[in-house]
């Protein structure tokens, strides 16, 4: 982008103002390629399915697939060309950085683009005809989107529209004068360009970062940048324009030092931006996207006047524990402490004073009712078989599922909880495809609507399901942790056969999980809660679905149902459970990954005896509790009649004697007499 100089519509001395207004320019392609891939995957899928559906012969299907692949690559080439060529119009969108969506992990880009596409589409357009934003990229606070020319007018009309609580501005972008970077060296660097000056700048910045980073303490000290001799030598602060681009560039160089996001996230816990004369965070705002998991942040000795000067970080740094704003005008504000406590729920120290205790933080997380493994009471494996068949069928053959276990009396309803809590820093795609069917009784109060949104009978349900987006649920066997499935018998169901006037027994099944929704080119991840009642009937396996009630909500992860584990060192007797008798393990409920466990271990499989599955699950549990290998865990359990409590007790005794052998602790004679010993190789390698 060496050619792109000056700001649009201005010349000479006003350059700087224009640049400054747009903010810093890290020119990162907004996953343009990824979007294209998604698009082409859809094309491929569609074509492949369609063609193989028509053809009978296997070689015809092969032809079709090859055709699909080759046409797919053509499509991709076209898109690439389109994105760079002159066929598309470019529009600058600003204001979204102030929206609530900016706290999403991607800075709100995905939802912004979804928002724009929705607004660009005619009100009643189907998924296939919706307006597309072919390509987009971020430059500072600006999102530059490429759209087909006929959408330009509508796009410019979106100026002033509110997105997630913030007004947007849209203006046409002229690529010939629109280069936002007027300093070739930095601009090339910010784009990862390969020119020698860029490489040189990058090297210099890497050196500076190296001097300012302490690996042991995971501290990145970016204080007093204005007096850094190396930076002064580079002429960074010679002009406001380079200054405003410097920090994003520095962050970019920092990111380039890491192979992957995980390593980058783990490298830094503390950042100091003290003594930088900052009146607001505009110049340094990229810190939040580069190092989002900061625990300690020193902003002392700056010029922040009020909360507004930090507002861009209102929803950032969700793990912040220590914040120093000493010697800033803001810290004298009477609302200072309350505001910061509110913004940062994990904040423990503010201006070096403890504002929350560790207990208070822990109490936030604590559930008064401990989270236990799923309660799954399904003696004849009816629910287990049903759930497995159902979700595979719902993804691949909804009609087949309906024909097999839904009948004329089955009821299906769905409701959308549009405001459900979500997993941190995820975002929610629009609910258009469902909202007109949603039977949230808090919102749907008129009787006719309540009636029309209940679907009774397999045919009506089929009609509805055909209109709902395609889904892909995770495989229960390979991703059990993403599911929580509970089940128990209930009485009083209607007896379809009419033989029992007092009702019949059935099963109440509650499933919580996630699914990918495949809607055109987009794949959205959502969470769901689905309650089924199944009873005896004329369907496959002698059952029928009485009720199927689906609740959809934003993706909320699966951490909430990971059982709270007992203290790390198991006691001789397991802690008295609050209320529950030990529930039998669910078919899909083993959140602990034990290294070395063979695939499918602890999971039911065709031809595998129930007792074996149960024993394997006990072994996994034992191994998880004791860190012993599967082999030793199995020995401990089988030697104690598969009684977990006895095996744990025995383990405690043996472990003590092991520690005696290793001279880790003095031991009483009687413990030395405990039967048997555990060799060190009985244990799994130390946890990483």
């Amino acid at each position, binding site marked *: 982008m060496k050619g792109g100089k000056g700001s649009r519509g201005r010349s000479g001395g006003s350059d700087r103002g224009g640049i400054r207004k747009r903010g810093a320019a890290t020119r990162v392609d907004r996953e343009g390629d990824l979007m294209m891939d998604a698009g082409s995957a859809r094309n491929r899928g569609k074509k492949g399915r369609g063609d193989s559906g028509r053809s009978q012969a296997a070689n015809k299907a092969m032809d079709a697939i090859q055709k699909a692949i080759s046409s797919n690559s053509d499509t991709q080439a076209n898109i690439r060309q389109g994105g760079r060529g002159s066929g598309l119009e470019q529009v600058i969108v600003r204001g979204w950085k102030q929206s609530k969506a900016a706290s999403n992990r991607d800075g709100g880009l995905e939802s912004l683009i979804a928002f724009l596409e929705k607004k660009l589409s005619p009100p009643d357009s189907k998924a296939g005809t919706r307006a597309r934003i072919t390509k987009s990229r971020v430059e500072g606070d600006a999102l530059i989107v490429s759209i087909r020319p006929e959408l330009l007018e509508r796009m410019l009309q979106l100026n002033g529209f509110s997105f997630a609580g913030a007004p947007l501005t849209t203006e046409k972008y002229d690529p010939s004068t629109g280069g936002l970077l007027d300093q070739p060296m930095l601009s090339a660097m910010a784009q990862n360009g390969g020119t020698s000056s860029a490489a040189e700048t990058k090297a210099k910045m890497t050196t500076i970062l190296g001097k300012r980073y302490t690996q042991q303490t995971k501290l990145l000290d970016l204080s007093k940048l204005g007096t850094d001799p190396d930076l002064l030598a580079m002429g960074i602060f010679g002009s406001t324009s380079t200054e405003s681009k410097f920090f994003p560039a520095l962050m970019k160089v920092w990111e380039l030092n890491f192979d992957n996001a995980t390593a980058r996230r783990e490298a830094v816990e503390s950042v100091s931006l003290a003594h930088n004369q900052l009146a607001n965070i505009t110049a340094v705002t990229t810190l939040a996207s580069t190092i989002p998991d900061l625990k300690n942040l020193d902003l002392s000795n700056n010029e922040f006047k009020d909360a507004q000067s930090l507002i861009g970080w209102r929803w950032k740094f969700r793990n912040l524990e220590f914040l120093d704003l000493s010697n800033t005008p803001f810290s004298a504000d009477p609302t200072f402490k309350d505001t910061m*406590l*509110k913004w940062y*729920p994990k904040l423990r120290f503010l201006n070096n004073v403890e504002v929350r205790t560790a207990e208070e933080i822990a*109490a*936030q*997380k604590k*559930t*008064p*009712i*401990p*989270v*236990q493994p799923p*309660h799954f009471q399904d003696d004849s494996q009816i629910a287990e078989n049903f759930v497995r068949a159902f979700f595979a069928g719902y993804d691949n053959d909804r009609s087949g599922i309906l024909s097999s276990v839904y009948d004329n009396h089955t*009821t299906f309803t*769905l*409701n*959308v*909880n*549009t405001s*459900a*809590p979500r*997993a941190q820093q995820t975002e929610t795609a629009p609910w258009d495809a469902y909202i007109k069917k949603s*039977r*949230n*009784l*808090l919102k749907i109060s008129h*009787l006719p609507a*309540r*009636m029309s949104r*209940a679907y009774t009978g397999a045919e009506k349900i089929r009609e509805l399901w055909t209109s709902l987006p395609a889904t892909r649920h995770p495989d229960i066997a390979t991703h059990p942790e993403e599911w*929580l499935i*509970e089940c*128990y*018998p*209930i009485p*009083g169901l*209607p007896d379809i056969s009419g033989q029992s*006037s*007092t*009702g019949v027994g059935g099963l*109440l099944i*509650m499933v*919580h999980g996630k699914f990918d929704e495949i809607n055109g080119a987009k794949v959205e991840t959502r969470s769901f*809660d689905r*309650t089924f*009642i199944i009873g005896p009937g004329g369907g496959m396996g002698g059952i029928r679905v*009485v*009720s199927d*009630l689906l*609740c959809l*909500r934003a993706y*909320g*992860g699966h951490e*909430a*149902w990971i*059982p709270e584990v007992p203290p790390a060192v198991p006691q001789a007797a397991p802690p008295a459970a609050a*209320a*529950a*008798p030990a*529930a039998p393990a669910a078919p899909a409920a083993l959140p602990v990954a034990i290294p070395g466990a063979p695939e499918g271990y602890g999971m039911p499989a065709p031809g595998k005896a129930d007792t074996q599955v149960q024993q394997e699950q006990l072994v996994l549990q034992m191994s998880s509790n004791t860190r012993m290998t599967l082999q030793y865990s199995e020995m401990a359990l089988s030697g104690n009649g598969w009684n977990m409590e006895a095996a744990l007790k025995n383990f405690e005794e043996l472990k003590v004697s092991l520690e005696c052998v290793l001279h880790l602790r003095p031991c009483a004679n009687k413990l030395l007499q405990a039967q048997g010993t555990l060799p060190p190789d009985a244990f799994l390698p130390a946890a990483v």
Partner: protein
Amino acid sequence: MAPPSEDTLTKVSTDAATDFVQSFYPALENNRSTIASFYSQPTAMILFNGNAVADGAAVQEIFVNQMSPTHYEVQSVDCQIINKAYPTPTSTGVKLPTETTVKDMSILVVVSGYVRFGESRDLPQRGFSETFVLVPNPSADGPKGKRKREWLIQTQNFRLVV
């Protein structure tokens, strides 16, 4: 008696669900001494995060003695009729189909919302999903002259999901 119309069935069931939700969750928040009165006797199963609780009295005991102030926000509710000729128990057994009225039904109610354990508004909002089956209250009168609850919890399963 002619079978009740679909309109009536929908009205009775959906009103039962919303009325229940609008009285039960406030009771969990600040009227905990009434919690037991929401449960039928006997109940089928009561689960909180996988912990089985014996009956309504035990639920009330937990909320009265062990739970910090708790705020529930119900965000979505839906219901379905399970059995529109529910065999409501009577003193002489259960109602026969010829004796049932429109209110002799069992209703599946599913609630989605969030809960905050503790008083501060800054505490995290934990998403929950809760499934109930409501059945008619067979007793003629409410406790001590109060209006009786028309619907009682036959089974309940609460789960934190976010």
